[in-house]
Structure formats: structure tokens, C-alpha cells
């Protein structure tokens, strides 16, 4: 590159680099893992650079093709979008590093005919490009296309494990995702019918609280709630996340559900809120569904018999918390909005760490039944520690990112005098603590009789580093709480609307 070239556009790189990587990984299949990991690293780097740029106080904006809105499509990144992009890049990097190893071992050679491990890399890179495009897009129809990339790539990742249950879950996921995208698109069509624009920013100055816009909002939010697995539309999630390959589960639970929830928050606070469409009743309804998700998801997590299902149901509950921002904050970003942003970030790191640990448990013990878990020598101490750290953040104990998020939610709830939401947050926290401690106590119950198995020859330095990935991810979830002022400051960049 010569000096004459302009500074790299980090935002655009986070979209185009993974798409190009996917194309390359598809063509040069035998190098797919190297290409895939290199592209993921590049994307993670770009997203961090973008975050630093935005944190400096300058929201990102570009009119693609040089066509100003409403004719063209605009890309935008405020603090929230930049944080979500960095979260996607970093969690993705961790999972990809782990996948360098597990994508070979996860699928026994005898089964490689049923599902092809090579496909992980192009699917993951397409998912990554789709997610990043979604966070950056400021155009209602463009968002529809990004939603489709994300859901179809996620369906592919769900089926990757090659288990019969995974095929069934992926099929259901595909039909549900297809319907959800079309519901969203119906809303876009209705808004275009009434106002003749697709750009969100332009629409914000045109929308009025009238029947066409209200119906559009209803179907868009219904489609996105279905995609986010919001209770009682969560039925498709636990089997999909519980039967996918571990790397895929980590990506689906940590990243994919965030995309549609992010879109709900984006539309609520940027489009429906400022235009008076988002009513208190609508917020209350979505909040109640969120409360249902928190209680039902946490309860199912307490009752789950398999570790992976417990983790999957915990995602149902976590999605519920994110919807509490709507009734708590009303239509203007406030404490609850900051709280759910923190929760979403912390959950991505903690949940990916936990799913990757599930794989280690499955590999070492040959099962993931919670009742039969023990602190066996087969299970590395680091895995037990990682599970504990991730659990701390998921429950919402200090000093984790999950704690800061819940604390802000509680503060918003107490200040507003919302007894109902306070009670729900408390009850959910108790339930998820119960669920997580059910797993953790298994490790505290030491079993000295357990014979130490002959260890495999010590793995190389790269392998050792890869083993540390889940721990690093869980550590970030904790760290987020310790340095919470920084992400909370970044959130304010461009949050004026």
C-alpha cells in the first residue's frame, strides 16, 4: 500500500474481509482453517480499531456509493454498534482459535461423511460478515438482507454436528427464521407504503403514531422477537443450541441471538421511540414477555439434566433481561438501556466460554449429565475455573460485567418504583444462581479416590494457548465489570439519536 492511500475504513473491513475470506476458504478448502483464522483475526483487529476510533468521540458514518439517503444506503456506528462489533470480533476470534483444534476432533472421522468440518469456516465467516453488516446498517431493507445471511449461516452451523437431532433442530430453525425475516420485511413494506423511505434516519423524521406505522411496528417486533427466541417464541432455541457442535453453539448463543435483540433496541430507541409509536403498553407487553423468558428459562435451566441444555436455557433467560430495557426506560435511552448493553456484552463472553467448556467436559468425561459430573482429574482445573468465572458473570455477581449490567437494571427499576421488574430480576438471579451452583458444587465435591489417568503427551505451545481460550473469554466477562466505566462512556457516543 502506498502513502497516497487513505486510512483504512475499519468498518467496511469488518464486513468485506470475512466475506472475501469465506469465498477463499470455500475455494481452497484444504487451507480453510488457516484462511478462516487469518480472516477472523483481521476482522477482530478492524473491529477493535473501529471501537477505539468511535470511543474517541466520533461516530462512524458513510453513504455507500456516494448516494446520500434516502436514495442510497448509509452505514453508521455509534458507541453501541462499535461495542457490538468489537464483541463479535473478539468472541469470534476466541471461538475460531478453539475451532482450529475442535473442528478436527469434534467430528469423528467415521462421521465426517455426514457433516463436513471444512464447512465451519466459510459458514462462520459468512455469519461474521452478516453480523457486522447488521450492526453497521442504517437501512431497513438492507437489515433484512443481513438478517437472512445471519439466519441461513446459523442454520448451517446448527446442522454442522451431523447429529440427527441437529438436523431436526436446524430445519425448525430455518422455517422459524424464514418466517421471522418475512414478518420483519412486511413491516418494512408497510412503512415504505406509507412514508416511501427505507433509511431509518429519514424515517425517524416522517413516522407518526397512526395505524399503518403501528401495524408495521407490531409485525417487525414480532418477527424480531421470534428470531430472538423471546418467550413464548423460544421453543426452537434450546434444541438448536443444545445439539450443535460446541463451537457452533458458542457462536449461536453468544452472538447470533444478540443480532436480533440489538435490532429491537435500535428500532425502539431510534425509530419507534422518538416518533411516539412506542407506547407504554407495547413496552409493558415486551417487558412481560421478557419477564416470562427470565423466569421460564431460568427454571428450565435449574431442571435441565444435561449441561449443554442448561447453558442453552440460560440464553433464553438472558434474552429476557435484554427486553426489560423497553418498559424500564420507556422511549429514551437511560440506565436500563446501559444495563442491557452491558449484559449483552458480558453474556457474549461468558456464554461462549461456557459452551466451549461444555465441549471439554463432553470430550474428557464422555457425557455432560450434570448429576454425574465430578471433580475428576480428567477435567482440567482451568475448565472448572472457567466455568466458575463464566457462572459469576451469568448470575450477575460482582465484580463481573454481568453484575454491572444487572445492577444498572435494578437501579433503573428501583428509581422508577417498578416493583414488578425488581422482583423479576431478583427471582431470575436466584434461579440462575441455583442452576449454576448445581454444576459448580459438583466440582467442589472432591473425589480423592479418582485415579489420575495417564496424561496424553504434553501438547505444544500453540495447543496450550488454545486451551486457555475459554478461560480468556470468561476473564473478559469479569474484566468488563472492573473497567465498566469505559464501555459505559463509549455507549454515550452518538447516543443522542
Amino acid at each position, binding site marked *: 500500500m502506498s502513502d497516497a492511500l487513505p486510512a483504512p475504513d475499519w468498518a467496511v473491513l469488518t464486513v468485506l474481509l470475512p466475506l472475501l475470506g469465506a469465498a477463499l476458504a470455500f475455494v481452497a478448502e484444504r487451507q480453510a482453517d488457516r484462511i478462516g483464522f487469518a480472516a477472523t483475526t483481521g476482522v477482530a483487529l478492524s473491529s477493535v480499531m473501529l471501537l477505539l476510533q468511535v470511543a474517541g468521540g466520533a461516530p462512524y458514518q458513510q453513504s455507500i456509493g456516494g448516494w446520500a439517503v434516502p436514495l442510497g444506503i448509509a452505514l453508521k456506528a455509534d458507541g453501541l454498534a462499535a461495542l457490538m462489533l468489537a464483541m463479535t470480533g473478539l468472541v469470534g476470534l476466541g471461538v475460531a482459535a478453539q475451532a482450529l483444534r475442535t473442528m478436527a476432533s469434534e467430528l469423528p472421522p467415521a462421521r465426517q461423511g455426514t457433516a463436513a468440518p471444512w464447512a465451519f469456516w466459510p459458514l462462520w465467516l459468512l455469519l461474521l460478515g452478516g453480523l457486522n453488516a447488521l450492526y453497521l446498517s442504517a437501512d431497513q431493507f438492507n437489515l433484512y*438482507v443481513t438478517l437472512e445471511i445471519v439466519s441461513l449461516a446459523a442454520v448451517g452451523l446448527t446442522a454442522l454436528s451431523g447429529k440427527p437431532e441437529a*438436523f431436526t433442530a436446524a*430445519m425448525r430453525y430455518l*422455517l422459524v427464521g*424464514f*418466517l421471522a425475516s*418475512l414478518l420483519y420485511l*412486511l413491516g418494512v413494506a408497510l412503512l415504505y*407504503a406509507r412514508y416511501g423511505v427505507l433509511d431509518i434516519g429519514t424515517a425517524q423524521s416522517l413516522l407518526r403514531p397512526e395505524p399503518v406505522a403501528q401495524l408495521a411496528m407490531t409485525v417487525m417486533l414480532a418477527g424480531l422477537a421470534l428470531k430472538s427466541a423471546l418467550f413464548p417464541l423460544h421453543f426452537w432455541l434450546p434444541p438448536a443450541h443444545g445439539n450443535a457442535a460446541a463451537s457452533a453453539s458458542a457462536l449461536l448463543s453468544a452472538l447470533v441471538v444478540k443480532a436480533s435483540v440489538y435490532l429491537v433496541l435500535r428500532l425502539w430507541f431510534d425509530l419507534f421511540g422518538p416518533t411516539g409509536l412506542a407506547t407504554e403498553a407495547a413496552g409493558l407487553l415486551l417487558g412481560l414477555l421478557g419477564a416470562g423468558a427470565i423466569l421460564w428459562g431460568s427454571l428450565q435451566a435449574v431442571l435441565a439434566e444435561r449441561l449443554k441444555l442448561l447453558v442453552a436455557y440460560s440464553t433464553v433467560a438472558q434474552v429476557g433481561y435484554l427486553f426489560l430495557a423497553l418498559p424500564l426506560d420507556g422511549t429514551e435511552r437511560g440506565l436500563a438501556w446501559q444495563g442491557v448493553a452491558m449484559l449483552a456484552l458480558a453474556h457474549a463472553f461468558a456464554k461462549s466460554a461456557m459452551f466451549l467448556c461444555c465441549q471439554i467436559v463432553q470430550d474428557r468425561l464422555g457425557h455432560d449429565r450434570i448429576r454425574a459430573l465430578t471433580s475428576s482429574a480428567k477435567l482440567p482445573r482451568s475448565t472448572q475455573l472457567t466455568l466458575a468465572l463464566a457462572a459469576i458473570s451469568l448470575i450477575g455477581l460482582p465484580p463481573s460485567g454481568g453484575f454491572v449490567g444487572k445492577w444498572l437494571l435494578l437501579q433503573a427499576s428501583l428509581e422508577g418504583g417498578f416493583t414488578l421488574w425488581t422482583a423479576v430480576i431478583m427471582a431470575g438471579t436466584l434461579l440462575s444462581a441455583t442452576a449454576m451452583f448445581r454444576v459448580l458444587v459438583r466440582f467442589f465435591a472432591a473425589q480423592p479416590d479418582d485415579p489420575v489417568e495417564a496424561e496424553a503427551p504434553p501438547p505444544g505451545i500453540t495447543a496450550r494457548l488454545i486451551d486457555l481460550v475459554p478461560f480468556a473469554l470468561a476473564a473478559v466477562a469479569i474484566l468488563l465489570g472492573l473497567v465498566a466505566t469505559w464501555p459505559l462512556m463509549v455507549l454515550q457516543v452518538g447516543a443522542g439519536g
Partner: protein
Amino acid sequence: MTAALWHALVGAGLFSLSLYHLIVAQDLLRRIIAVNLLGTGLFVILVALGYRGPDAPPDPVPHALVLTGIVVAVSATGLALALARRVHASGGRSEDV
């Protein structure tokens, strides 16, 4: 009633009819077809929006959106059929989905 409104209503009917069948059908092939027809209903609404009478040129934006939508739909359908075959090949039943 204008022609555009009439066709938009036809699209709405198509959308709703397909929604019913998508929910109640258990046969995978039928569900895949239902979701395709649901999409077509939405496309009819969009193209009807583009129609501005016999004298004015139609609005090209909905047409472009529908073209994109048709390609996305055929991609999803291709993937759905490959997946449905695996569901059946691995002993799954349509009813389980």
C-alpha cells in the same frame, strides 16, 4: 378501488393463507412451499406499491427489493430441501420439526 390496492389485498390474502398452512402443516415439503407462498404474498404487496397507473412509470425500488427477495427465497428453499432430506435420511419425521 384502485388496481394497486386490489392486488395489495390479494398479496395480503396470500400472506395470511400461507401463514395458516405454515403453522398447521406437518409435511415438510408443504411447509417449505407455504413459506415460499408467504414470501410471494409479501412480494405482491411490494410490487403493487410500485404500480403507479398506466401513465406514470412504476417505482423501481420495490421491484429491485422483490428481485433480491426472490433470490434470497430460492437460496433458503435450496438449503431447506437439502436439510429436509437429511432429516428424513437420519430417521427424523416431519412431525418432529
